[in-house]
């Protein structure tokens, strides 16, 4: 834009004066690479009229709707349970029914398969980071044309399937450098494995803070199995119950830190019925899932720490989180080896309400929460991670102090 040979486009700021230009190769580089300088020389492509644009975009939209009907249907399936979801799902399924016989849903399947094959050829196939249980769960269901899996399927530990959809994003933070990107772990019996598991509450800063807290100790091997936007409410989208058995078998953790539930303050679809949040039927169904999940985590005698939910900025979300915490706390008492960790008082203002900034252990104000009013900010995550690391090393006193 400083090339004086081509006039600046009309949106541009006035060019710098000559005095402001220091001798350098900018003008040369711009002349060679800048699209603005070159577009002056090339013949312009033709312009379109409004009807033409309408036809063009209309054609594109119709073809896209056909090619992507499956993707759209699976997107509607994953939306939060609501009347809109039911309507969108029905409409898109109807479209899919029409499209299916024409064969227009095939290209997408072929493309996905081809993409996976290329990724595999490039060495990404065996990367645990690529093993995306969510994608498999939703796409394979669509591929086989299965109906929605019954959300109240048997989910006891004995009912789980070996060889089901593979784990979510599993990042192994083994102490040796490079393990995280390599992914082939060789667990040595002398070392302990800590498994972090859950949704976005533990995926980002909190997971990192726990990893940092353990990184000095070569005897702690950390494995992270996190998938954002998941929970216990939508096994049709992502089913933790199917992921965990193979995960436990492969990683054999002695300690598990689990944070789930932040995405569960929604209604549950049970076949054709919709169970409303916090109603009696919902409570029974959800409680059953939480207990089953806790039992499953504790099957191999690992110690499990179930992180509760913190207060949220949105008041009604905060209330729902507190309600869920009640379920977690009671369920944890039922299942041996599982402890519930109450974050309501640890990450909040003195009156127990949501707080973005809070005094940390040194008495300084530190940012605890992100701007979204839900997730932990790095310093907040470090604060929580201290207690979690204490629990991992069984330094119990501070943890129990915090809970009082």
């Amino acid at each position: 834009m400083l090339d004086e040979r081509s006039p600046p486009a009309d949106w541009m700021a006035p060019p710098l004066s000559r005095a402001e230009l220091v001798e350098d190769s900018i003008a040369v580089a711009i002349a060679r690479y800048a699209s603005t300088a070159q577009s002056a020389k090339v013949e312009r492509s033709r312009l379109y009229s409004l009807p033409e644009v309408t036809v063009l975009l209309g054609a594109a939209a119709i073809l896209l709707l056909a090619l992507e009907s499956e993707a759209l249907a699976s997107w509607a399936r994953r939306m939060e349970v609501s009347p809109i979801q039911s309507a969108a799902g029905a409409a898109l399924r109807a479209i899919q029914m029409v499209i299916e016989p024409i064969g227009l849903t095939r290209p997408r399947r072929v493309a996905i398969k081809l993409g996976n094959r290329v990724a595999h050829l490039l060495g990404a196939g065996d990367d645990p980071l690529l093993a995306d249980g969510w994608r498999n769960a939703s796409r394979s269901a669509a591929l086989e044309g299965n109906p929605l899996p019954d959300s109240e399927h048997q989910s006891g530990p004995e009912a789980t399937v070996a060889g089901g959809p593979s784990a979510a994003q599993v990042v192994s933070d083994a102490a040796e450098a490079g393990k995280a990107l390599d992914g082939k772990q060789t667990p040595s019996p002398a070392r302990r494995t800590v498994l972090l598991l859950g949704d976005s509450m533990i995926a980002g800063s909190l997971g990192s803070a726990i990893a940092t807290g353990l990184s000095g100790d070569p005897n702690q091997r950390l494995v992270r199995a996190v998938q954002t936007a998941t929970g216990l409410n939508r096994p049709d989208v992502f089913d933790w119950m199917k992921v965990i058995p193979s995960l436990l078998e492969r990683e054999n953790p002695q300690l598990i830190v689990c944070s789930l539930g932040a995405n569960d303050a929604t209604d549950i679809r049970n076949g054709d019925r919709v169970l409303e949040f916090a109603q009696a039927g919902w409570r029974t169904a959800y409680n059953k899932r939480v207990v089953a999940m806790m039992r499953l985590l504790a099957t191999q005698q690992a110690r499990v720490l179930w992180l509760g939910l913190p207060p949220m900025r949105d008041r009604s979300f905060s209330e729902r989180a507190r309600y869920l915490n009640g379920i977690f706390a009671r369920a944890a008492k039922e299942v041996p080896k599982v402890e519930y960790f109450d974050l309501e008082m640890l990450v909040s203002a003195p009156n127990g309400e949501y707080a973005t900034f809070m005094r940390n252990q040194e008495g300084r104000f530190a940012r605890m929460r992100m701007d979204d009013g839900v997730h932990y900010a790095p310093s907040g995550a470090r604060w929580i991670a201290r207690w979690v690391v204490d629990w991992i090393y069984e330094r119990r006193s501070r943890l129990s102090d915090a809970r009082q």
Partner: protein
Amino acid sequence: MLLLLASYGFYAFWNWRFLPVLVGLSLLAAGVGRGLQLIDAAPARKTLLAFGVIASLSTLVVFKYLGFLASAALNVLELTGLHSSPARLPEIALPVGISFFVFHAISLMVDAFRGRLTAPVKALDALLYVAFFPQLIAGPILRAESFLPQLAKPPDPESIDASRALELIATGLVKKVLIANVIASRLVDPVFDSIGNHSGLEALLAVYGYAAQIYCDFSGYSDIAVGSALLLGYRLPENFNAPYLATNPRDFWRRWHISLSTWLRDYLFIPLGGSRRGEGRIAANLAITMVLGGLWHGAAWTFVLWGAFHAAGLILHRLWSDSEAAVARHLRAFCGREWVGRFLTFHFVCIGWIFFRSSSIDAVWELFKALGRWKTTPPLSAAVMVALCLGLLTQLLPAVQRATVRRKFSRLPLLIQGFAFAAVVFLIEALAPEGVAPFIYFQF
């Protein structure tokens, strides 16, 4: 009017609670702008402009920086031994895109003050200018001077540059959905999230990866915004111009986030005195501009450091270009070679990205420590390397060939054009990793 409703609908989709802030700021800017056009007396004009700018900036400060500033101030007080600090700080949520629309409001008022707006400011136009939805959340930052005239007369329905629009949208999607996503989820996030466990080579690749990711992510978004606006008949500024080909820090800022760097230049650096008042003052102006520019990205010390780092680079580059010492002259001749300058500038920018990406200052040091740990590491998967290289190469797409493709494309039958565009979007979706990560620049 329709566009305005669409824009507000788009904003309400993110968070309707903040619509009054958006509308209020727009009306403030419109009122002050019109006032500046009507009043002739110089002192009154200055007061009015000061009032408008201070009001907009305080909105930004209250929503975005109050918690950060208050906690920093209280912590400083604590250190000096004076503590009467409250148990908690006020809770204020951050409206999406506020950094962008406050800058729009200021641009409108200042342009009106400078007499750059020929037509009278109308409230509706101002509302749409501040909230125009293709760029509302993450830029590019528009100039009142160039955008308001576009609103004054409706776009010509006979001349829509659709082929360029579709090209921009498609390349934007490829950059964002395919390249940036793969690099982020397979390389950058795992390494930055647990730096302590990674070797120097991995850390280095993650830094290069972040350079590629943030470019693809942000320029991809800008491309999509410019393309969609073009379909509606409006022209938005280009935001990037092969930034990693810059041969010095100053050149970089003429190629990276151009709409922000020119905004800062015209509404901050030049009012501060620009480069007309002696070396010391220029350095100070550069430092102020870049530190505030850093802070604009977020209320965190890492962004302040990032801004300061770039300011230092710009100042040093200035001194170095003017220095008459023999050593400097010889070195300058060497670094003046294009590729040497490019190599140095790219690495300078990459070091800056470490500050930008890290979650805290501790994390920055962790990363620098990791860079010093040279151990043998298993090779990265080829897929990630391919994405990284592609990410850095996308900035080189040659304009002439692109124009040729566009011209040929625009001569095809309309239906074929539509189908071809659909096929491209379809392929991007099918090949994309599941779950698109949010655009990096949405958070600013």
